[in-house]
């Protein structure tokens, strides 16, 4: 007879010394792993519950403005700098790591309607209710110098928004019509309009940099081509759009924040139906900004909340709200895709985590010197 018994050599299964890793042989046969679906269900349920347990998204509140915050702008080269414009004409530059205001400028008389930074990060532009466009230096004034704009442009009508080109020395303002300006000139290079109503915001496309989109009071969104100096396409919605934001990863996708409590994601090539309708807000959506990954965006609404939506879903994955935060006017997602800043009309800018349960600061492991400093008061040494 031929016989062989299953006999395992323990040397192949047990580690030799305590310093070795344990050996874990694997066999992926489904017969050895029964109840895959219910176990995975239980794991997913527990993971979701724990994610909610560890969700502590609020980081800081930047205090200092004396009127509601109207607009925010990110510094293109520095992750810790943010600029904000308030309803009393003040522009403040904040340092997010120290959470303090580094510079205050009385930029306009009346609202600061729009603020945008130049792509190189050396200067920024503001527009206000006093019909001016001002360009300021990003570094503060030197010793003995006064706070003066680099350049002031006086216009005939109130400008309601401004956005800078992502690569060239050009910027666009909107008010009665969309004007494209060259930085060296005091009159617009070209003016484009389609319709007879005022335009509330304008945004350049970060990838196809000659494209702009604007939102007007007669409920339309118009796309312009800067090279031909003409409007390209128009889509009319049921209610007015407050702002649009272009997807930084997909050149033809933009999301519009609408007054009918929804956000609409459009594909520029086919504007007749939106790609997705995002539904969760309960009051007008005032601002929208994309994450640098292009997979999610954040929206600020009149209903005192900030919601984060995935691009392909119609429901939000997260909502941030506080008793202290009133109507949220503007929101930005930082360029490292980790933080969200929102400015509300109770004069505060709040800093939140984009992923509420994410651990952002690694626990410092005590090095050889600090090991004996167990006492809490000594840790500050």
């Amino acid at each position: 007879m031929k016989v062989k018994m299953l006999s395992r050599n323990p040397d192949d299964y047990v580690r030799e010394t305590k310093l070795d890793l344990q050996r874990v042989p694997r066999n992926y046969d489904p017969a050895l792993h029964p109840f895959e679906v219910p176990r995975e269900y239980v794991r997913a349920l527990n993971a979701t519950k724990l994610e909610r347990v560890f969700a502590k998204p609020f980081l800081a509140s930047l205090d200092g403005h004396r009127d509601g915050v109207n607009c925010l702008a990110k510094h293109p080269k520095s992750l810790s700098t943010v600029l904000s414009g308030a309803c009393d004409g003040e522009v403040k530059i904040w340092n997010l790591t120290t959470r303090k205001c580094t510079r205050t400028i009385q930029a306009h008389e009346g609202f600061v309607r729009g603020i945008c930074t130049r792509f190189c990060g050396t200067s920024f532009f503001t527009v206000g209710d006093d019909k001016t466009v001002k360009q300021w230096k990003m570094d503060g004034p030197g010793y003995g110098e006064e706070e003066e704009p680099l350049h002031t442009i006086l216009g005939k009508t109130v400008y309601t928004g401004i956005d800078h080109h992502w690569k060239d020395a050009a910027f666009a303002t909107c008010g009665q019509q969309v004007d494209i300006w060259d930085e060296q000139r005091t009159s617009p290079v070209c003016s484009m309009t389609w319709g007879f109503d005022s335009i509330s915001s304008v945004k350049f496309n970060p990838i196809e940099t000659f494209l702009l989109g604007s939102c007007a009071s007669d409920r339309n969104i118009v796309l312009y081509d800067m090279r031909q100096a003409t409007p390209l396409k128009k889509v009319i919605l049921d209610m007015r759009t407050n702002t649009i934001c272009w997807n930084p990863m997909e050149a033809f996708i933009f999301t519009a924040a609408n007054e009918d409590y929804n956000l609409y994601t459009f594909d520029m090539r086919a504007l007749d139906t939106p790609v997705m309708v995002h539904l969760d807000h309960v009051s007008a959506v005032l601002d929208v900004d994309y994450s640098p990954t292009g997979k999610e965006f954040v929206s600020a609404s009149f209903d005192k909340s900030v919601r984060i939506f995935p691009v392909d879903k119609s429901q939000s994955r997260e909502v941030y709200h506080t008793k202290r935060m009133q109507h949220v006017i503007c929101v930005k997602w930082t360029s490292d895709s980790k933080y969200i800043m929102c400015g509300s009309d109770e004069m505060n800018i709040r800093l939140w985590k984009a992923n509420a349960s994410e651990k952002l600061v690694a626990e410092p492991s005590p090095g050889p010197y600090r090991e004996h400093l167990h006492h809490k008061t000594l840790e500050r040494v």
Partner: protein
Amino acid sequence: MEMVPKPRSHAPAKKDRLRAKRKKPRRYWEQESGASPGPPPKKRSSRPARPRSSQVLRRSRISRKAQVPKPERRKPEQTLSGAQDPFPGPAPAPLEVSRKFRRIDKSKPLPSPKSKTRSRLEAAEAEEEEASVRAARSELLLAEQPGFLEGEDGEDTAKILQADIVEAVDIASAAKHFDLNLRQFGPYRLNYSRTGRHLALGGRRGHVAALDWVTKQLMCEINVMEAVRDIQFLHSEALLAVAQNRWLYIYDNQGIELHCVRRCDRVTRLEFLPFHFLLATASETGFLTYLDVSVGKIVAALNARAGRLSVMAQNPYNAVIHLGHSNGTVSLWSPAVKEPLAKILCHRGGIRAVAVDSTGTYMATSGLDHQLKIFDLRGTYQPLSARTLPQGAGHLAFSQRGLLVAGMGDVVSIWKGPGKASPPSLEQPYLTHRLSGHVHGLQFCPFEDVLGVGHSGGITSMLVPGAAEPNFDGLENNPYRSRKQRQEWEVKALLEKVPAELICLDPRALAEVDVISLEQRKKERIERLGYDPDAKATFQPKLKQKGRSSTASLVKRRRKVLDKEHRDKVRQSLEEQEQQQQQQQQQEKTKPPGTRPSALDRFVPQGDPWGINWCLCLLS
């Protein structure tokens, strides 16, 4: 740098044909005759042939599409040392093995072509195919081979004695065969722990012991001073459940009594559901009780309504408990449902033993009618094969690789199937053994080729080559785990504990696409909002001036509207009833399908489309 021409296994491109004219320099590892290691150049491997680069170029010219220049990938044969891969291409993946890893049931139809779900399901199916091929390829890494026993020249393996096997086998395996002669404390029942390292034995007269049978180290040995009817390890070797004469007791593996569960009285059989942490007990009072050992609560106490329960088996695939009854039926129970999930009529007399194999495909039952039958559990519940035994089998058990053992009196017979996935063929037994007492308990040891038999003379550990799964998964049950690994595994198992409500006949039921009905959606909406937004608000009469809003007139107005609504409702329901009646009449009047059309059909009365009958009545 001079490039050395290599013999290629696929059709050479034009560039290589030029290069092949140069002679290859001989390397030191090649023999004097000049034979090089590796396959001869013309041999075609089993993998799909790579497209020739020249062919690709020609195609692109015809189609005139803009070709995105692909990055030049370094060909695997061009290594700096000049060594060749003797087995080029990916490892072979046998098709039958990859079928084992497929989980999606392709017989279910996909939803409508336009829905997003369909595209997602199709993508999931394609991914699963690829993953199953890769998993099949990874089977090459499994280290152990299963055991086997083959007779030479038509020798009947059933006649081979255990002593012969012990002589023929290596020392370590020979040590796995032992007999414990324990005649003093009555017939023994035994249970192996989930990893197969530890053995618990319980004698009828109160002897309870737990030991590591591989190293023969005794963990504890006590006498509980009461009759012991069944014994079972809980999730690990740390805890034992003993069904004593009156109640259920839980002991530590050091023999310390931890719990006395008085709600489970006169228990005859115990089964532990490892992934749900449930201990199922069948009692003489006819109750099947589920005890959650992680929280210590009785999850369900089901009245089986069939008298004394003494035959119980667990289906390891879906955690359903099979109970055998004296009227020849086997009923299937889940703690979530008060009634049995299914009842199968198996035998003419009472059921004596039930066993289910580890994949949940086959159920073996034996009855008082001396029959041993194997049923198909996935699908038809029909008997696949049957065999008459000279003496009825009182105990049955399946091994991990599908071997079936039956204990008939003091003889134990083992049947084997042709492969791992097919049922055991009951024609000829694979092995038999005679014991020194009548069999009272049978279990195959999980990852060893060993069968443990508890009988009236003690415990015997038999060698059964080919019974066990040779390659275990270290993260599920690892017989060589250390204390730290056991602790980690226990915590993870508790975190993944499946709730008892999810036990049903198909464990993959949660993975189905949830098609929620409209009524269910409405109900959920009402629950969420607190009221029904679609319900019509009750009529509130408008308050009028000049005395028209007195109580009496308000009541009158309200009554008027309610009466009108009631009349409308009644009229609608009457109309619906009439329509239903008409439909029924029409259905009755349609001809039966077998009849052929004939010329006289026009005279068959089919209702009254023109009122002809009425006209005839008028005329007459």
